[in-house]
């Protein structure tokens, strides 16, 4: 297989683009896709301070790497979930990347340790509140990333969600007709109310396989092992189904997710979410972060965990 751009030996074929690339041309392709996402979705500008949510996995470390290479001002936050063995390993990957790569670009890493701040690791917390670990993890990470971005005056928070993540989430939401979640599926969510950071997903144009390839080709040392808590998750099942379709019919995932984004834009416009958020959200009476309820889901969860621990 030959590189579509320069005809040297290719290292990866991309059936959905009917293309193949050598190492330098593939890196350029990935950077172009991210630059296009940032521009078309008006994610951020050169002067903006970006907080990248990193986990030690390929997507978030590749995102941090790409943003720094493209010349953006991107720091990172890592949330240590206290998962035995796994968290220590992923934390080490993030710290090493920060020291060897990010530091040269003047970028810094912040670490939030769940066990210190919330009093228990993710597994104990989810048992205390009787919720699946992935959902507890999501609540904590969303809360802490948003809090750090707002408190430290970042202009925008960036996550490593990729095309596979978004297509799988869309499939799950549609299968269960959870239409109320659909307007949060865009790649750029505005800071709709005070206390909410703007959130963007600059990797939404790239598949999980393309991002893993970028990480391997650019020698990014990431944690390959799957999070032990995600075993058997519905997301993995949806991704498997979509990847079987993709292998048979290249371009399925992008047609599904990008097509949804086009429909959304046509039918709703950009102002609907802002209006909805502004009318539905109020400050949490405990912590002040925006919530639809009197007390936000994070504070409710921590209160339940404390009550469970003392009973």
């Amino acid at each position, binding site marked *: 297989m030959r590189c579509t751009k320069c005809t040297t030996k290719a290292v990866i*074929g991309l059936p959905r683009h009917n293309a193949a690339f050598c190492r330098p041309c593939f890196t350029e392709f990935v950077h172009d896709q991210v630059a296009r996402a940032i521009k078309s979705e008006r994610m951020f500008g050169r002067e903006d301070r970006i907080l990248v949510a990193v986990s030690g*996995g390929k*997507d978030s470390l590749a995102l941090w790497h790409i943003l720094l290479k493209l010349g953006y001002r991107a720091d990172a936050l890592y949330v240590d979930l206290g998962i035995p063995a796994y968290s220590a390993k992923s934390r080490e990957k993030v710290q090493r990347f920060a020291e060897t790569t990010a530091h040269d670009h003047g970028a810094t890493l912040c670490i939030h340790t769940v066990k210190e701040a919330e009093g228990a690791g993710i597994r104990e917390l989810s048992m205390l509140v009787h919720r699946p670990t992935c959902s507890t993890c999501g609540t904590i990470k969303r809360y802490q990333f948003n809090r750090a971005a707002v408190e430290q005056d970042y202009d925008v928070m960036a*996550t490593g969600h990729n095309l596979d993540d978004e297509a799988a989430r869309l499939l799950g939401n549609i299968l269960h007709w959870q239409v109320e979640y659909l307007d949060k599926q865009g790649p750029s969510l505005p800071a709709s109310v005070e206390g909410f950071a703007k959130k963007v997903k600059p990797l939404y144009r790239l598949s*999980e396989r393309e991002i*893993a390839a970028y990480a391997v*080709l650019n020698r990014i040392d990431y944690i390959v092992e799957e*999070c032990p808590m995600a*075993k058997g998750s519905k997301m993995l099942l949806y*991704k498997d189904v979509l990847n079987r379709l993709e292998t048979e019919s290249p371009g399925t995932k992008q047609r599904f997710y990008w097509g949804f984004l086009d429909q959304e834009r046509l039918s709703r416009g950009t102002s609907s979410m802002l209006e909805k958020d502004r009318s539905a959200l109020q400050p949490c009476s405990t912590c002040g972060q925006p919530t639809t309820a009197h007390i936000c889901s994070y504070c409710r969860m921590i209160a339940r965990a404390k009550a469970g621990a003392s009973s």
Partner: protein
Amino acid sequence: MKVRLCHPERDIEIKGPKRVKELLRDLSLVQEAHLVIRGDDLVTEDEMLKDDDLVEIRPVISGGERG
């Protein structure tokens, strides 16, 4: 050839020569969910793997919540 698999990590022996595409098919692995790595580099689906090659088949899919 020696093929290293993940989740759980293990090595298996497969008779070469064999194309990457055929190797994945023989192991019932979906191409879109895996990368094939030889040494430090990725190999494309049409590449012929030799009997004395050492390759890693790395899954690229992760689940659960993110960010």
